[in-house]
């Protein structure tokens, strides 16, 4: 992570594409400005030498065995009732009652 990181407009467009976001021409420069401001602030993490420090994905890891024994049990792999299909489909934007319907996938 370089101290002088500058995200370009093209990079903002690329990231927006990855995130399935369509930004308007007006939004792009604002987002570029804000991203650079936040990334500049985040760059202070480089002051720290983290060589040899394990990456912490979640809290349980830091507490050692205690939480491993108590906090991460999985429920039994057994059949149980799931949500009623009709109730789920009732809140979908478009459905045939059995499946979610979406527009055509391949553009012509």
């Amino acid at each position, binding site marked *: *992570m370089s101290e002088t990181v500058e*995200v370009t407009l093209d*990079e*903002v467009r690329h*990231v927006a594409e*990855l*995130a*399935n*976001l*369509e*930004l*308007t021409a007006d*939004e792009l420069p*604002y*987002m570029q400005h*804000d*991203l650079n*401001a*936040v*990334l500049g*602030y*985040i760059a*202070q*993490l480089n002051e*720290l030498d*983290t060589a040899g*420090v*394990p*990456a*912490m*994905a*979640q*809290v*349980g890891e*830091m*507490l050692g065995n205690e*939480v491993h024994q*108590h*906090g*991460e*049990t*999985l*429920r*039994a792999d057994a059949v149980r009732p799931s*949500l*009623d299909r009709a*109730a*789920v489909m*009732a*809140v*979908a*934007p*478009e459905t045939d009652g059995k499946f*979610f319907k*979406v*527009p*055509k*996938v*391949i*553009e012509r």
Partner: protein
Amino acid sequence: MIGTVKAKKQIPFGNDKQSGETGNMSAATEIKTALTIDEVRAGIENRTSTATAIAEEHYARIAAEDGPTGKGINSFLALSRERALAKAAKIDDLAALGDPLPLLAGVPVGIKDVLAMQGSPATAGSKILAGYRPPYDATAVRRLDAAGAVLLGKLNCDEFAMGSSNENSAYGPVRNPRALDRVPGGSSGGSAAAVAAGFAVATLGTDTGGSIRQPAAFCGVVGVLPTYGRVSRYGLIAFASSLDRVGPVTNTVKDAATVLQVLAGADPLDATSSDRSVDGYVKALSQPVTGLKVGVPAEYFGEGLDPEVRAAVEKTIAQLEAAGCVITPVHLPHTKYAVPTYYVIATAEASSNLSRFDGVRFGLRSDESKTLSAMYKKTRDEGFGAEVKRRILLGTYVLSAGYYDAYYKKAQQVRALITRDFLEAFAKVDVIVGPMTPTAAFKIGEKADDPMAMYLADIYSVAASLAGICGVSVPCGTTADGLPIGVQVMGKHFDEATVLRVGAAVEAAQD
């Protein structure tokens, strides 16, 4: 207050349908102090009031004050009258039979709109979930319901819980009931405002980087951050899964302990919930704090801390010492890195979690959805607000090829250092006490155009979020302008009992 409960005597039992609008309005204005859980239960148990009358009273107050014709607080996004009154009637039936009442019998509660509550909308403060009504209850909601609580409705919040002022809601900002030109804090701004305004006795909030505790401090109420894994997140619309917690907002520490008692515990539907036994939180409050070691971190009293907030917190620490606590300096050397670490980890997780909002299964689908890819993009463009887009972009950026190690892995390593700071400090002390926020509530609009200034409002709350420890924010005075000030008590993983005990001592020391 007790006078008000007595006044309810005139309303005949089970006669809620006849209690007219005007009658309720006058009842609402009579109440100057909010009810506690004990007062609600006692009123119902002694038959001096009914759950139905109490629910109607709260709805009347909401009708009179929450909307634009009242004070425009805007804390409730949806009311669930039918479900609430049916529940209240059930509680009244129990009371009539003289049956034992459950722990939260008849207690009016509100639910932050990021939690699923069957039959009610769940917008998460976003247009993208407009119209969505989840077909099930979140576990936290189900537990409140099972304990006899009366669920009044859904509460406003920053969109997808992203914000520190509640100005990011697609359904308008919430006003701070203690100063209507000020923000209530965020993201659980509606949850804190509803309790402060007397619209609900307790509410559920969620906290990812301070979203329960900071609004509690701004509104002068109590907010609990339970340990990561202590309260189930099943049915919570996820923001950052390694950080998100569900917890109570109340007027008193005892009420917070009572609600947490109901919420805490393992849930087979949430694999991150812990099956550790749950302590007796209410019982712990009666134990004296004498001899408890209270750590005071110098890093929480540095530059940027408002002098009035500092004075109030220092006074609180002196009061704890007078109550028999042993005050000990501690060091949390990586504190200044907590906010940048948080904004990498939280946004990275958010960019992944929010990919599910795509117009397929629930909520909004753009009218411009001619093809699948256009549907995704148009729906997300129309549905998400600016702050959500900003965080999705940042999160996607830090996870993208070539940047993962430099940002995401680096932040995870610093997160480990921040957590170690706490583990080392807690080897020496029982709790850590400091300011909850650098300033009291700021004005609506003051920081709305400056994301960085807004992020720094979380400077004292995010470290506890990253470390997974528990904490509580308790009111500890007001500024010269009358704005509430909050002090935070942070505790060891799963040691909510001690945190609440110290919180109760702070509360007892107030005038």
